[in-house]
């Protein structure tokens, strides 16, 4: 019988090194995940086909990165999180805590986020911010809209997938969540088309992890809706942090649990403030050009 080659490194340094190595391992697993691969390919395909058609409003092409990188990314990270559940009797007695493993899973969201960055750059190449398809918004606000519609969903969707994977037993929970969010965004968008000046409808439209800010509504005129894209990003980022905290809450005990719950309370208040500011900021009425 041979002996072990080297003892594992002890202490805090080991925790950091292990976390980095574990996050890298989980990223490789995500990249090899067929759902995520499909998401990346479909995003690229949607952007490629977007340059070949005449775009009259930006919203006809920019939801695809959110659907694929955010929605499919959520399903992929949900699967990734749940995949080790059966091995919990073994993994739960290793030096790496459940919280550390959850944090490593959250770190994999940087992969779809990086894909989102590439998608945003490609999008700006195809549809420069000076194009009239962005509606009445200023150039910085147009960048904010794209960041809120491409970048943040690519980060938030996968984080939500990790949180669902940690808490939900139902194997189809991520798919159900995807359909619910998709349905809700479509519902409130339809309401916004029929009631473009309504403040409650604007609030409902922004009460989602993804929102449209312009629409042609079947006419040749482009309508720019109410709402502040900058504060909407604040709301989205608050939701991302809430997803991470909810995921980390699973398995946390003692002081760590108390700290997470405290942070969760702060982020919930922040999210509400951001939503209110997003709904009350920006244009006070729909602008049609």
């Amino acid at each position, binding site marked *: 019988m041979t002996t072990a*080659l080297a003892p594992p490194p002890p202490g805090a340094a080991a925790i950091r090194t292990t976390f980095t190595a*574990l996050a890298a391992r989980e990223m490789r697993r995500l990249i090899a995940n067929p759902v995520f691969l499909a998401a990346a390919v479909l995003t690229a395909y949607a952007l490629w086909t977007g340059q070949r058609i005449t775009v009259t409003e930006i919203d006809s092409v920019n939801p695809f990165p959110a659907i694929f990188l955010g929605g499919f990314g959520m399903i992929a990270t949900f699967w990734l999180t749940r995949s080790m559940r*059966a091995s919990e009797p073994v993994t739960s007695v*290793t030096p790496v805590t459940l919280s550390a493993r959850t944090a490593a899973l959250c770190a994999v969201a940087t992969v779809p986020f990086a894909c989102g960055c590439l998608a945003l750059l490609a999008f700006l190449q195809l549809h420069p911010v000076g194009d009239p398809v962005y509606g009445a918004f200023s150039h910085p606000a147009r960048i904010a809209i794209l960041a809120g519609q491409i970048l943040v969903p690519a980060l938030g969707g996968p984080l939500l997938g990790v949180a669902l994977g940690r808490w939900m037993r139902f194997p189809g929970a991520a798919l159900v969540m995807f359909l619910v969010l998709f349905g809700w965004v479509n519902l409130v968008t339809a309401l916004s088309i029929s009631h473009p000046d309504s403040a409650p409808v604007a609030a409902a439209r922004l009460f989602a992890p993804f929102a449209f800010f312009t629409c042609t509504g079947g006419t040749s005129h482009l309508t720019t809706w109410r709402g502040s894209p900058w504060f909407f990003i604040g709301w989205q980022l608050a939701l991302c942090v809430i997803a991470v905290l909810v995921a980390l809450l699973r398995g946390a005990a003692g002081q760590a649990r108390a700290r997470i719950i405290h942070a969760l309370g702060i982020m919930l208040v922040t999210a509400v403030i951001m939503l209110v500011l997003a709904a009350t900021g920006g244009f006070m009425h729909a602008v049609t050009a």
Partner: protein
Amino acid sequence: MNASISLREVGRTFGATRALADVDLDLKPGVTGLLGPNGAGKTTLLRLLATALLPTQGRLSVLGLDPEVPAECTRIRRQLGYLPQEVGFPRGFTAFAFVDYIALLKEWTQPPARHAEVRRVLGLVGLSGLGAKRIRAMSGGQRRRVALAQALLGSPPVLILDEPATGVDPEQRVTLRTVLAEIARTSIVVLSTHQTEDVAALCERVVVLDRGRVRYDGLVTDLVAQAAGRVWLADEPDPTASVSWRTGTGRYRNVSAHVRDAAEHVEPSLEDAYLLLRGGSPEYEPSQEVTS
């Protein structure tokens, strides 16, 4: 570092069910076998030793560390190998990938050393050539050996094995005994099993649990000696025997709580001694079943 495990009046309850009560044990390097009927509390005891559970009563110390203190619990886990009764495997993982993943969780962060260690433990359980095979495509015995391989990572000072030989073929069981005997030179090995022959072949010490309490704690040879003169062969089942069964030769093996004179006595086995200790009552007691 204190190379021992100590339990003082340790108990564990699950709601209203008492799984363990007043367990006092001191475990040193060597192999200790854990025997007992279903629901006796063996798995609960092993989960306590593996820090998967905390005691609800008494004090547990592993290698001089308290598992109830988070930092000390982590230190224990760095020196622990644990094979649970049931291990599920993630879909799509090969044997190598699974053990490698667990090695990473055991802080083997340097890939060359980790991969070499994974290959070493897969070799110990006789899976050298099957590292690239998907676990889902493996037999039950092979899966069990994959699960065992992860427990052997780093030759841990404390090795907790819950029914390690389940589904493993006789040749591999012999190999397993050799591996565990080697590890037990320096490590505390505790294994739970229903196979008394494994305990007899491997363990110096045996602990018998019944209804959450320790019924026997001592040398295997001493337990077997208690059955001397109480086991005999006969052509018919003896009505005075506590247990009797027909053997492969067609004769009946009788085990009695009382020494029987003028009979064809045979060498008692650990199983005979265990049955005697249990009052000659091998029957299952579902009311005491604890699955948590």
